[in-house]
């Protein structure tokens, strides 16, 4: 089983970070993995993405051309990566930031108003974690109960005080999916 994910949006939305949390969760579960950022003259406000592969077998290329999971937090990223998603794959959209719908019909789309939900939590910058929580709850690419430890490892010591809030955001995303399923 191999899950290839691309997380894309604006720089500053925490896409590289949410990718790292996902990768670290894979590591904690003893899986093979790779994390590859887009790097370049990227900065807050520019476009940014990262590719995460979690697999039971050694990872070949760390470059993801056809993601099974696409998480997008802006419209340019949806435009760029929507055609690349593997048939039968999933697109998780922050529907408070991306207004247009997904046109592909051979993929499943999950719209989550993550930025609005994050703002309601009082932490607008944690929309990325809400989406990540939703991905994990929906697809089980890593176990939901690995997430606290993965977050703890990934969050820098300097920002340790934000751990609980991040965790809350992940749980909010998970609850959103559970609510959707019931």
């Amino acid at each position: 089983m191999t899950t290839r994910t691309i997380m894309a949006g604006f720089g500053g939305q925490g896409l590289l970070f949410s990718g790292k949390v996902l990768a670290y969760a894979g590591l904690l579960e003893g899986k093979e993995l790779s994390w590859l950022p887009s790097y370049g003259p990227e900065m807050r406000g520019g476009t940014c993405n990262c590719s995460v592969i979690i697999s039971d077998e050694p990872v070949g290329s760390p470059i993801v051309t056809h993601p099974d999971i696409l998480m997008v937090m802006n419209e340019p990223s949806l435009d760029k990566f929507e055609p690349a998603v593997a048939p039968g794959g999933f697109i998780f959209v922050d529907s408070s930031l991306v207004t247009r719908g997904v046109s592909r019909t051979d993929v499943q789309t999950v719209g989550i108003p993550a930025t609005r939900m994050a703002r309601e939590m009082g932490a607008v910058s944690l929309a990325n974690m809400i989406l990540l929580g939703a991905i994990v709850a929906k697809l089980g690419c890593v176990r939901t109960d690995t997430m606290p430890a993965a977050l703890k490892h990934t969050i820098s010591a300097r920002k340790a005080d934000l751990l609980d809030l991040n965790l809350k955001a992940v749980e909010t995303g998970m609850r959103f999916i559970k609510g959707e399923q019931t």
Partner: protein
Amino acid sequence: MKGNEAIAEAAIRCGCRHYFGYPITPQTEIAAYMAKRMPKIGGTFLQAESEIAAINMVYGAACTGRRAMTSSSSPGISLKAEGISYLAGADLPALIVNVQRGGPGLGGIQPSQSDYFFATRGPGHGDFHVIVLAPASVQEMADLTRCAFELAEKYRMPAMLLADGTMGQMMEPVVLPEEAVDPDDVMKGKTWTTTGTGMKRPHNIVNSLYLKPDELEKTNLERFKRYERLAAEETRWEEYMMDDAEICVVSVGITARVSKNAIVECRRRGVKVGMIRPITLYPFPSAPIEAAAAKVRCFLTVELNMGQMSEDVALAEKCARPVRKCNRVGGMIPSADEVAAAIDRIAKEGR
């Protein structure tokens, strides 16, 4: 851990306490890591005023027998060329990390393998080589860093870790050696260092200037004897699905990873394809490639340059089989689909 960080941590664990650098994308994480760690462990991190200054600081530190290194990316390595030649001329071991980006000139900042010729032919003036190692995973970034220091000391020559931007930027799980090398231990047995005579021995001189041509010739000849020994004893490569292969991919670094995916895909369709992945680029694994020429009908080099390594492949197999190319440049990377298509084209020709 990021590939760049793995290099830095591996260097520290194998006793390197002297890092001199100048920032450049995509290898800056090495310097950043060293800046954080070196002061805490009694080492030296120094951001020099230029790449040229940094490589000459490495020269100075290397004279003492201590493990010293610098890192940069393509345009910065060009600047270091003079110093690398001096290191080679003075038979000093040192590590130079090159996390390549697109060129020529300032080029771009995306991954590349276009310094292949520059690295393997001897990056600087004069007759010399450096050991060139090409990692294809974060684990190898760490393992080959240690290997580079050890080989550099064993053969008294500089070593270059030739990675590409992707290897530097990606994160993968990595297992680092638990036991760290004592930085003082690496000094043991080195009789040539300039660390003070203690009035007990004649002076050691580290130098690359020989004004008498017969003496200079002798140093060159002796050095090339060492290169022969290096080639005979230290050439490394990995073979992948080569047992029954009819097509042989030759690729290093990120493109070897992409090629692996393409090979798995082509094998699923019944195409008999394998890969030889050189791990040392100097010395180049000519023997396994020549041996492969006896059983495959075609070679395919997959590179992030205009086909520099394909020339070494053709030389190695003495043009017995055609060498096709699948390459992208400027920071572009071929997708596994592109590589698979190139393999399929060769497979169809054979029918």
